[in-house]
């Protein structure tokens, strides 16, 4: 008789040593985890294995649950990865709440469609199973609607996430086709094929139901690189689209993406915790969207799209001018003042914190002129440079060691010179370091 494996011990080992475990050991472990059945223990073990699975991408056993999740697998995120913005996301926690409610019904469908036996047939792929899966997902769509009403909170985020799952199930076949191309891509040319496949499916859906086409574009946008890449694709497509309806559909999706972004900007404006909500990458994304949207809207001549793009730009620039810039300056000034007050050694953490705030300027400054914010950004940076220069002078006056030499000055206030560089540029900072006092 063999002893039952100690699952708690296995999980602990996995969490602690996931980076060191041999690939073959993980490949052996995976079917064992699959055999545990769809329960909390399996979920915990898979969570522990996920960092390696993301890299290895081994073939996974297709179960009823996995088949069900297949259309929106690329949208699954852990709770701490949820971000504000136009990218649709499905938190794993939501599915964990919904799945037990619908599992019984789904499994009945699974048996009726004989998916288990079909999957055990050799060389049969998910794509070949698609006709049967379509019915499976169709039933799933209705069940998720019903289950969500019981277990989900009535907030806007949950409603949106449920709508994402429902949409993915309704458009499961199309989503899966794009996903298959996504999984196979290796080089740039494969990305082109992926985009071609997307537009082919998009055109078919658009001819049948423009709403579906619009939702489809949003659901597969992460596979195509997110909203920015999607807008880039749409922009290129809008230029070459030969069929009127195709071009109109493309503009419609672009309008929809922009409208979603408008909402995101509205939701952010005026929030006290703004800088925690808008990370620097999101700001860079918004700037690129703005840059793509203007020429695309103008070239299309589509009045609705021009209006939506105009609204987005106006709101985005207003948000930068009235919310983000004043808040950034105030936060940096506050931190710099704190450095003036302190007499001891500069803490690396403090400097790093202020640098993090300057990163917004590094993204924004090159675009400021184009957005009509050149003056505001320059004034802001000049005031901050003056404030930092004053702290440097104060520090050097009170430094313990010799500050007549470059080395002495760097040692006395190196971190502050770095902040001065971020505000005034590296040439000005170099002059300040090397100038005799």
């Amino acid at each position, binding site marked *: 008789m063999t002893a039952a494996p100690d699952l708690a011990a296995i999980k602990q080992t996995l969490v602690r040593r996931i980076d060191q475990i041999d690939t073959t050991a993980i490949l052996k472990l995976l079917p064992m985890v699959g055999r545990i059945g769809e329960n909390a223990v399996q979920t915990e073990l898979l969570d522990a294995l996920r960092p390696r699975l993301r890299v290895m991408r081994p073939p996974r056993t297709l179960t009823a649950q996995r088949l069900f999740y297949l259309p929106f697998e690329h949208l699954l995120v852990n709770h701490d990865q949820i971000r504000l913005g136009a990218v649709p996301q499905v938190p794993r926690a939501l599915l964990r709440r919904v799945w037990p409610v619908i599992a019984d019904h789904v499994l009945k469908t699974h048996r009726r469609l004989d998916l288990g036996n079909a999957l055990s047939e050799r060389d049969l792929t998910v794509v070949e199973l698609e006709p049967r899966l379509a019915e499976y997902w169709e039933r799933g769509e209705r069940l998720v609607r019903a289950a969500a009403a019981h277990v989900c909170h009535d907030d806007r985020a949950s409603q949106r996430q449920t709508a994402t799952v429902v949409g993915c199930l309704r458009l499961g076949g199309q989503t899966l086709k794009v996903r298959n191309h996504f999984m196979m891509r290796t080089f740039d040319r494969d990305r082109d094929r992926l985009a071609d496949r997307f537009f082919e499916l998009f055109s078919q859906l658009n001819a049948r139901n423009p709403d579906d086409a619009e939702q489809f574009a949003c659901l597969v946008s992460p596979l195509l690189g997110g909203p920015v890449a999607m807008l880039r694709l749409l922009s290129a497509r809008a230029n070459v689209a030969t069929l009127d309806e195709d071009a109109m559909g493309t503009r419609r999706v672009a309008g929809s993406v922009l409208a979603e972004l408008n909402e995101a900007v509205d939701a952010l404006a005026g929030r006290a915790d703004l800088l925690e909500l808008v990370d620097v990458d999101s700001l860079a994304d918004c700037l690129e969207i703005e840059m793509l949207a203007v020429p695309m809207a103008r070239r299309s001549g589509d009045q609705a799209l021009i209006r939506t793009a105009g609204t987005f730009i106006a709101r985005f620039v207003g948000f930068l001018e009235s919310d983000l810039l004043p808040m950034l300056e105030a936060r940096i000034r506050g931190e710099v003042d704190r450095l003036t007050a302190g007499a001891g050694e500069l803490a690396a953490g403090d400097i790093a914190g202020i640098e993090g705030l300057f990163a917004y300027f590094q993204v924004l400054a090159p675009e400021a002129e184009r957005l009509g914010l050149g003056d505001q950004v320059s004034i802001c940076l000049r005031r901050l440079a003056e404030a930092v220069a004053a702290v440097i002078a104060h520090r050097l006056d009170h430094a313990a060691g010799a500050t007549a030499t470059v080395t002495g000055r760097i*040692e006395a206030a190196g971190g502050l*010179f770095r902040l001065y*560089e971020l505000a005034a540029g590296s040439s000005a*900072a170099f002059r300040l*370091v090397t100038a005799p006092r």
Partner: protein
Amino acid sequence: MSAGQGTTSHILKQVPTTFEERGVSLPFTTPELRLTRGRPNERRTLELVLPKFAGTNAIYVVPWSALPEVTSLTLFDRLFHAAVAERRATTPGAIRQIHLRMAATGVGGGVPQEAARRALDDDHRRSVATSLDLVIACFVDLGLATEPELRDRVNQVPAMLKDHKVAQRLDERYGLTATDWYGQVIEIGRVLSFAGRPGDPSPPRLRALITALGRFQAALKEWSGGLVGDVVAMVDFIVEVVGLTADRADAELRALDALTDDRPGLVADWGQRRPAVTGHLGRLSWLLDGWAPLVELWETAIAGDHDRRLGAVDEILRALPILPTAELRTGTAQTGRADHLHWQQRRYVRLYEDWRTGRPDAALIRKIEQSEADT
């Protein structure tokens, strides 16, 4: 500055002969200068080797003094550039010291400042601990006390050196006064602290980097297992170079361990063994020079998506520290393997290059031109 001619064509067509010709890896923070190397030229002045500078496939070689005119530098790089020129630093150890001391001031940013301070503290702590280990090993050898006794009153060890009897025993065994003996132990401790000892639970940088290379190689193999196409050959090439470097570094380390295992003997024979010990350490630091940022690059890429990993492979390939031919000739057993690698390096085609000619992909260029025309 030269590109495609003179020195550049020499580099493109041949692998470096010596570590010095390959150049020392330079930790610049300006993005265009990432993974750059520096080396002394024929006139023993410094020059920079810039691979794929300005997005081209040519390797640019520029005089050290011309760097600020070539590109806009960050404040840290301006100061680092001046400090390297002032000290004429051309070895990995010297470059590392300049870099750490400058980064520790915070002039390169808060995060590098913390890392540099930790690294300098770690170096100092290891140096002291290694010296202390040497003192204890020698005292045990002289029969002055047992190791547990000495470890229990480790703070009293320096005071013991003032003891007349101890000084006499040191003079008899090592032929040195207590002060000179202690000075020699401190020097040996500082030298050996960079390599550590086998089985060290917290190995120093160089020993840890060999282990990291093993992990890097395994991770690349694991990832490429699921790939098809040209990229597999590129990853295989990197894996081969990593393997060869790790093997050579491991051999150097084993030779060093064998030479320094008998600690009292090492202290007694330091004058004789010094050139061999520093030679092994020097080769070890040259072998591993430039690998840490590549390992780091891959570890960051592995957390990202497929495209990011492909980009990392391309970047790693262009900065791959190929072993110099002269260095490989010293290990005859592996010469065949190295020759094969060098042949491979000349033959592989990089991402976005035409397979037959190695020239940039014309279709891709047309696409970029089209995109430029559209905007």
